[in-house]
């Protein structure tokens, strides 16, 4: 894979979907898709267990199992006939997508409460963060420019001069850490994910 990245276009037969690198990537994809089947089994195990133990969540788990079976049958029907039944698309468009969008929208409230805690000026560092945050907010909110035309300029300065270099420094050290981690994994020294580090 590394050879493909560095010399793929220079060495004939190395890259491309039919060659070694492409084959390896296809295998990774196949394993990933098989794992989704394992994931489904895990979910069913978790919910069957709730039902069999008659916990206070058993009713929701039973509902999950019924709905899972219902959608699985609809999906298998589509696979067999090629016809997508209306309930299948209705559930996806009107239940799943709507709930997902709602959940994403409530993130705003969580950000508010996190920002409230972060912006309390308890020490000099937090006070600097608060001042920078106010300028950036006034630069982005239309009212900022109405109050004073310099707010967008100052806010953009905090964003482009104050924030970007710091974030790039984080990115560089993150990449170096990733290289060291990758090297340890390549030579078999990073085996914590088999609990050997414990």
């Amino acid at each position, binding site marked *: 894979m*590394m050879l493909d*990245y*560095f*010399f793929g276009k*220079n060495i004939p037969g190395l890259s491309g979907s039919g060659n070694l690198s492409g084959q390896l990537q296809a295998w*990774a*994809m196949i*394993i*990933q898709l098989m*794992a*989704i089947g*394992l*994931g*489904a089994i*895990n*979910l069913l*195990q*978790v919910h069957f*267990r709730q039902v069999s133990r008659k916990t206070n*969540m058993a009713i929701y788990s039973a509902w999950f199992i019924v709905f899972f079976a219902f959608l699985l049958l609809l999906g298998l029907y589509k696979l067999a006939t090629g016809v997508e039944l209306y309930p299948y698309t209705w559930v996806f468009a009107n239940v*799943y997508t709507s*709930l*997902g969008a709602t*959940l*994403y929208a*409530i*993130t705003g409230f*969580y*950000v508010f*409460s*996190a*920002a409230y*805690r*972060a912006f309390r000026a308890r020490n000099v560092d937090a006070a600097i963060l608060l001042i920078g945050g106010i300028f950036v907010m006034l630069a982005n909110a239309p009212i900022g420019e109405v109050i004073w035309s310099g707010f967008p300029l100052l806010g953009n300065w905090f964003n482009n001069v104050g924030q970007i270099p710091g*974030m790039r420094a*984080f*990115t*560089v*050290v*993150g990449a*170096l*850490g*990733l*290289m*060291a*981690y*990758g*090297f*340890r*994994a390549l*030579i078999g*020294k*990073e085996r*914590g*994910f*088999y*609990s*050997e*580090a*414990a």
Partner: protein
Amino acid sequence: MGVWIILDTKFIALLLLIASFALFYAYMRLAKGGMKIKVRTFPAVAAIPEAIGRAAEMGKPVYYSTGMGQGTLNNQGNGPQTLAGISILGYATRLCAKSGVKITYFTPIADSLPLVEETMRTAYMAEGKPDDFDPTTAINFQNEQSPYLTASLGWIQREKPASALLFGGFYYESVCIAEAGNTIGAMQIGGTANTHQLPFMIAACDYMLIMEELYAASAEISGNSDVIGSLRGEDILKFLVLISLGVGIILALVGNTSLIGLLKV
């Protein structure tokens, strides 16, 4: 073709990568040979036993997640973060097994599930309590962010865990989970290398592993001298990068952009 390869800046990148690997390896060998390397303690790692001890005292469970991580281990940026998170999970599970605390792991990454189950099972076995491991405490959500987040928020509200450990490649779920944990007063330790989630996690968590600290944490937990040696190599590399940055800035100021051109991939 040979000349073309030499002129390709990707070839320079490969040479630098090999040199970096050589540096890591050299320090690993030196550390294994007896060279003393002092690693500063990560407060976030040092706080993990405290978080689990708190759960044991309160008789409450521990929440653990490695984040959305693009829904797969097969992702350049997030896969290694998930693996680093699973390394710390092994350590946390062992501490939980020792003190009889229930740990529940939430993930939307289906292909990480066999690894997670094996890691948790090994941790319980290492503590001599293989029967205490319950495979249904590792819950998967089929590569989907919203169900994973909904289940996490619901579980946190219902079970009120004493501690929440969030190590891995997080996306917008980080702020929701960490804030939900904060609402119920859980002790929270986080770690991610995703720059876009750092501010939220820093605001909501009690302790944080920032960027490469997430990868270094498992080395510190392992305590293996040769693994720790690679951290010294990483620090030397950081120093070299800083020097090249300084030289690049000076050269660019006098109108010479050759170093920038050489390192551009």
